[in-house]
């Protein structure tokens, strides 16, 4: 038919495209080789600059060429005057702009732009900022641009309030952008810092501890602004409760106190002539300047972590020189100094006592709440109310449920235990892909609650049976426990951290799925291990028990290993101290 546009056949097109590609490749390879040989010869001329420009405009991710280009530019800096250099770099910036149009996420282009901007004799930061704005308006999650923008802001000293307004704008146009929220979280403490006299958050500072160090609160924001932020972020998660960026920002707002760094417990045992020290966070005792003073005399001791797997651990032990404290009629005073942090803890071992310890009786806030919040109870309470309101509308929203759980824990972990467990159950159903994560998190909270109950009861028995535990944590808090009951849970292992239970005498862990006993390692007082109905299948799995010198009673009934050939005689050889073996 007439008048119709003629279109080439597909085969014809393919052939032409192939030829075209071949031609391009030939040119490209030739130019690349020319560049490489020039570089090898140390030539830094305009021709090289042009060659690299041609290559980079078709492939802006050729890092070697950018490097070569920088060498050339640095050379030119030495031979040209400032105005010329300025011109060269300005041309470089417009060249880079065209590269970024080809690939707005090119590492090479953005890096080079940062380099050029930093070397430009008379930088035009306003132009750079507007470039970033244009780029972010096309893709507000381009992290290369965000990175570059942060550099520009830093170099040009954009006022913090302007930057905060910038995040307002970005969040307003699309709040599903964690980059903006995060940027906000870095700006707010600068613009609205918490007043130096904190209006006493709900936790009463322990009388003995020093006032919070400045860095503990450096990321906090004054209350007036915080309330505004709560409102903003609530608007976001009520509008779209499935968007995680708002929820993460909310978690940040609710606060995350840093626990005070301290020696939380010193334990000394006369029989083993051993000292165990627990810290508020994992440390490497060999490098933090730990000093042990016994009756006024500094001691030379070897600190070791409870398990060879740990370089950092919250619990460290050392053996005292033989004969220093073994006379039961003597009283001893022990001090452990954490010189790096200017803190120490004393412990007195009285006459007639086989062991002694010193620790603060921990409250729930000190132990666990710090993970969520240092906010006022009233603030948390009203936040819990509004999130509950959302939950009524969206009963199956996982972010909402999880936030409720966290708020409840911050408010009253024991009081809300029942609700928490119910919410966890819903969470596992609505978000089955992460049910193992929720199980672990729930285990953690159950352990925390059990520790709190144990603290209140002032006993050394830790019993947490039949709670669907899938993991163990906070084991450093169980340094003094003598009797642990983990029966009827879903544990698969006693991890290396389990070795922190330095005072353990009885371990009950019947009816779990334990396959691995790695953590039952060098427990000096352990006498009884009850592992009925678990999944221990080989003798090698029992190997760690051999390091526990006082082990007498071992129950392995209902484990695959009980069925192996010659198990009894092999066990007798492996664990000579065991006198009471149940298979």
């Amino acid at each position: 038919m007439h008048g119709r546009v003629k279109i080439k056949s597909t085969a014809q097109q393919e052939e032409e495209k192939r030829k075209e590609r071949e031609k391009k490749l030939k040119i490209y390879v030739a130019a690349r080789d020319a560049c490489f040989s020039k570089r090898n010869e140390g030539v830094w001329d305009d021709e090289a600059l042009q060659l690299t420009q041609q290559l980079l405009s078709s492939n802006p991710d050729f890092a070697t060429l950018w490097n070569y280009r920088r060498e050339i530019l640095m050379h030119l800096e030495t031979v040209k005057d400032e105005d010329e250099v300025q011109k060269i770099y300005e041309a470089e910036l417009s060249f880079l702009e065209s590269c970024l149009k080809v690939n707005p996420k090119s590492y090479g282009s953005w890096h080079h732009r940062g380099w050029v901007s930093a070397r430009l004799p008379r930088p035009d930061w306003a132009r750079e900022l507007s470039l970033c704005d244009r780029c972010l308006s096309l893709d507000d999650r381009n992290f290369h641009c965000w990175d570059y923008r942060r550099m520009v802001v830093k170099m040009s000293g954009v006022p913090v309030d302007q930057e905060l307004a910038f995040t307002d704008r970005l969040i307003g146009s699309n709040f599903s952008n964690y980059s903006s929220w995060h940027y906000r979280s870095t700006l707010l403490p600068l613009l609205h810092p918490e007043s130096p006299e904190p209006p006493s958050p709900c936790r009463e500072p322990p009388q003995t501890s020093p006032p919070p160090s400045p860095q503990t609160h450096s990321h906090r924001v004054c209350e007036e602004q915080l309330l505004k932020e709560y409102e903003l972020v609530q608007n976001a998660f009520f509008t779209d409760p499935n968007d995680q960026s708002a929820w993460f920002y909310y978690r940040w707002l609710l606060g995350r106190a840093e626990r005070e760094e301290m020696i939380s417990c010193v334990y000394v045992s006369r029989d083993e002539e051993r000292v165990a020290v627990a810290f508020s966070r994992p440390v490497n005792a060999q490098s933090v300047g730990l000093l042990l003073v016994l009756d006024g005399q500094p001691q030379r001791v070897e600190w070791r972590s409870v398990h060879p797997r740990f370089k950092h651990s919250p619990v460290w032990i050392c053996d005292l020189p033989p004969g220093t404290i073994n006379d039961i009629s003597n009283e001893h005073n022990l001090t452990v100094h954490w010189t790096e942090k200017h803190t120490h803890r004393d412990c007195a071992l009285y006459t007639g006592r086989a062991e002694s310890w010193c620790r603060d009786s921990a409250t729930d806030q000190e132990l666990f709440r710090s993970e969520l919040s240092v906010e006022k109870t009233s603030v948390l309470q009203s936040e819990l109310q509004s999130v509950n309101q959302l939950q009524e509308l969206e009963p199956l929203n996982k972010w909402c449920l999880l936030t409720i759980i966290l708020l409840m824990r911050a408010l009253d972990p024991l009081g809300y235990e029942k609700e928490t467990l119910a919410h966890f159950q819903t969470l596992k159903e609505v978000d089955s892909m992460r049910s193992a994560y929720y199980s672990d998190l729930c285990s953690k909270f159950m352990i925390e609650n059990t520790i709190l109950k144990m603290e209140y009861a002032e006993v050394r028995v830790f019993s947490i049976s039949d709670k669907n535990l899938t993991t163990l944590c906070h084991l450093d808090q169980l340094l003094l426990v003598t009797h642990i009951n983990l029966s009827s849970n879903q544990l698969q292992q006693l991890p290396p951290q389990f070795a922190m239970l330095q005072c353990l005498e009885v371990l009950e862990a019947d009816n779990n799925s334990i396959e691995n006993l790695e953590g039952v390692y060098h427990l000096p007082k352990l006498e009884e291990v009850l592992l009925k109905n678990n999944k221990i299948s080989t003798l090698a799995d029992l190997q760690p028990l051999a390091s526990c010198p006082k082990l007498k009673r071992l129950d392995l009934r209902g484990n695959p290993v009980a069925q192996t050939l010659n198990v009894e005689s092999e066990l007798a050889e492996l664990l000579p101290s065991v006198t009471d073996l149940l298979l």
Partner: protein
Amino acid sequence: MAAEDLPSEFDVVILGTGLAESVVAAACSRVGQRVLHVDRRSYYAANWASFTFNGLLTWIQQHQEESPPEEAQDWSSLLEEGEELIYLSSSDSASISNLQVFCYTSEEDEEEEAQRPDAPNTTEEESEAADEDAVKETSETESSDSKDEETNQEAAEEQQATQAEGEEPEADQPHLSPAASQSEPTRKKISYAQLVKEGRRFNIDLVSKLMYSRGSLVDLLIKSNVSRYAEFKNVTRILTYRHGNVEQVPCSRADVFASRQLSVVEKRKLMRFLTSCVEETEEHQAYNGRPYLEFLCDQQLSDNLQHFLLHSIAMATEDTPTEEGLASTRHFLRCLGRYGNTPFLFPVYGLGEIPQCFSPPLPVSLQVSMVTVPPIAAGRPAVRMVELSPSTMTCIPGTYLVHLTCQSVGSAYEDLSPVVTRMFRTPESHDRENCPSVLWCLYFNMADGSGAEPEDHDLPSNVFVCSGPDAGLGHDHAIRQAESIFQKILPEEDFCPPAPNPEDIIYDGDNGSSSTAGGEEEAQEEAQEEAQEEAQEEAREEAQEEAREEPQEEKEVLEEASPPAEE
């Protein structure tokens, strides 16, 4: 192209340059048909036209003048074997009625103005009709029953209130916003003479339409590559009139997030409702036939939300059935976010651009607000208002162009002036010191073109009828009509197939291009040019009658005229 080069044979003849006609013309020429596209008017696009202010005055004049019935010329001597003669209706004035013009701004003594005869004219006549210097003239309507099916149109240019207090100096704020912002200081009122003098800078559409960003028109413009001939901008915001205030309608996710009128719980409910609308559910079907409003009530949505959803998002009335309301809501939602925070696009230079895009390739920060005004009293129509800022190139700086459209109940003046009085400062309005004042306004009724179905006419099988603009906000009716006509003419062909990649066009061949006069390089443009060739050939085989027929049945029209349902 010189006259002697004009082709003398055509495959398709198209009379009239309205939207549907232009789309058919473009579609036919794109697949290689020889098309003769003619219009008896001196301007493009018939009732889809866009005028300068002066052009609009001429148009008004034409409609006000009683055109003497043309003597039907006898063409029968030119008839050849097997041909028959069909007479076109003599004038299209029938589609426009109840034309009234009001001028509220000072005339200034510029006696020599070319348009001067028009202005005094209006003043005189108005003094008889009402009290102010406005004019009222009702053109004769051919069929008296057509009145009720008409679309009321009103175009008002107004200047902003000179001293609004407590304004937010927000530069991008359309002045109809709740805050009644006006960043510029006291300004001299623009005179009528000035409007006339700068009249060429106006582009006033006869019909007020917005393009749904996923509507059939936008899809067609993109598919057929016509979009490059015009520039489109996203409508800035959607507002609604409620409790005497203009409020922003939160319709996108970002709007809902930023809204200060909604509580967080309302935000959640609104978002959840909008999300749940997208897919049809059994619950939705259970409401078929029952009012959408009832469905909204049962969703436990607050009054606020019901208002937004009913009037602004579905653009429905209280009696609209649920299935229709949901369909409109879905269409609205599908269009959201394609190009911005509202579902609508507006072509820079006005809607009159669109038909022209399909014909000749013409060389070719915007603020548009749409306001939905629910019926202000029982029995009154719901009014749709589109405010265009000077950045749309439709009016001069210092003015805004506002279109108000509704389904007719009475005459355009009766239906629309109460809304104008409430929203703007006119001599009739009271306590509206902070409202923008009206400079000049025009009321008229236009017949709803969606009623003219080809079946209504006793026409030969190769003659098809396009209708004029319909009352809907989008263009779907005209595009659907164009597509269906095209498929009747050329059942084997694709409707507006995508333009080929320029790289893939063969330029060296010379076979099969007998009708293209220009070089091969212009192959694509040629297709466009053919559509505009104006020759005095008579329609032979395939003719298309351009008709501005009045709708036949009232009921049918009313249904058709409601917002376009999803295709």
